[in-house]
């Protein structure tokens, strides 16, 4: 390169490129998780449950988890069943076996409990939702394979709002579907895509906030997304390169395959960031507060999967698929009523 051109590049061109790159990176992190300015909260490990006293075998590859209004914990696992545990981990009951009849499953995955105590279970393989009483008596089923309204391709996580409406993450169809308590289809929320508000890419987890908003673990957009109860996109939180392109992150700026989400009564959000093998605590608007990493996590398996919270908002339960156990965490400081950031 001629000497003059080399000097031009060194003193003008290179600083411009470096400066532009720095500006691009800085501006590109606008949609990362901002740090929240709230009362410091932390997680502490309360223990693990492996279901050693469960008839028919210990918990194996648990996926879905939910907490009932009375504190009982429901778990789905690879033994094709729903297990009910007391809040102290003692076995209460279980139901389910392989099959396509009432109370039978192909791959029970998501589980949610309604305000009246009824239990909804999504079947990833059979593309349907079954509803049971709290003790496992079959009530009704809805859904079938397909891409139409009320049809599914791999229903995953689900949640029930205070009015009894059921929201189901339709994994392969990149959408959320809303149903009445009797299984009648209401509406579709979100649509397939990587860029922009309202676009979902393999959603796996659903939670309903105190104000009725829908919070989605949008797993392969590496983000959380909020929707209004009418299905209008509200906000996204995660790492987005150049404002748009969702990317995995292992820092407090984003997620790596967030698969489950739960919202406490005071609004704090808890996320199973499965690809980072951690549980993350966020403010009500998605600001990073704290995290807890799974010790000795198997690096080849994304885990934990889903998360649920006790009625008082102080205890978290997460399904650790890789280690065949339930993780129990406690928040370490008193919940401030109506805490928001």
């Amino acid at each position: 390169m001629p000497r003059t051109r080399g000097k031009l590049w060194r003193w003008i061109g290179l600083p411009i490129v470096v400066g532009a790159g720095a500006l691009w990176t800085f501006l590109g992190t606008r949609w990362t998780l901002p740090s929240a300015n709230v009362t410091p909260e932390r997680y502490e490990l309360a223990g693990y449950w492996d279901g050693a006293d469960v008839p028919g075998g210990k918990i194996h590859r648990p996926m879905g988890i939910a907490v009932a209004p009375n504190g009982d914990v429901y778990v789905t696992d690879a033994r094709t069943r729903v297990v009910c545990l007391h809040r102290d981990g003692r076995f209460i009951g279980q139901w389910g076996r392989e099959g396509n009849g009432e109370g039978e499953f192909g791959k029970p995955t998501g589980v949610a409990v309604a305000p009246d105590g009824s239990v909804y279970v999504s079947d990833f393989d059979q593309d349907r939702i079954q509803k049971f009483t709290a003790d496992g008596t079959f009530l009704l089923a809805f859904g079938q394979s397909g891409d139409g309204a009320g049809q599914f391709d791999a229903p995953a996580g689900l949640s029930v709002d205070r009015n009894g409406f059921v929201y189901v993450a339709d994994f392969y169809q990149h959408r959320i579907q809303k149903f009445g308590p009797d299984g009648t289809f209401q509406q579709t929320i979100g649509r397939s895509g990587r860029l922009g508000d309202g676009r979902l890419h393999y959603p796996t987890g659903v939670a309903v906030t105190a104000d009725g908003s829908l919070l989605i673990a949008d797993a392969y957009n590496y983000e959380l997304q909020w929707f209004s109860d009418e299905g209008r996109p509200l906000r996204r939180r995660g790492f987005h390169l150049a404002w748009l392109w969702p990317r995995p992150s292992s820092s407090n700026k984003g997620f790596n395959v967030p698969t489950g989400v739960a919202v406490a009564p005071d609004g704090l959000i808890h996320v199973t960031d499965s690809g980072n093998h951690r549980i993350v605590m966020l403010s009500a608007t998605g600001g990073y507060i704290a995290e807890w990493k799974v010790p000795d996590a198997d690096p080849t398996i994304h885990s934990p999967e889903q998360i649920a919270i006790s009625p008082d908002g102080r205890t978290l339960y997460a399904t650790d698929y890789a280690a065949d156990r339930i993780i129990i965490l406690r928040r370490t400081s008193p919940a401030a009523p109506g805490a928001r950031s």
Partner: protein
Amino acid sequence: MKTPSTKTFVILVALFLATGVVFGASPPERAVIEVKGLACPFCVQGLEKHLKRLGAVAAVHTSLQKGEAVADFKPGRSASEEELRAAVKKAGFTAGRIRFESKPDETAAPEDADQPDLNAREET
């Protein structure tokens, strides 16, 4: 009559054995599919679901540690490599090498297969 030479005898025996191999060969009982990127349990469930949709597949076992899915065929049936690759692609993955083989001894448990020991389950 002239006695067959040793060379002719060896050729006849080889042909006889080859015939036995051809007509005695049984169809493959399973396919072992290498799949990269198997880490997320939801995706693994999806992979199993798409493979099970093939009419010839009876069951699917995945190993996250090995990065492979094993599709057991129904008796007397099998799926082609193209069908298997298409099913894996629909699940969002790309299949690597695919091996067709017979099932191992049924009394031996598959190595670190991601399946529960269903025999341990009691009736409730």
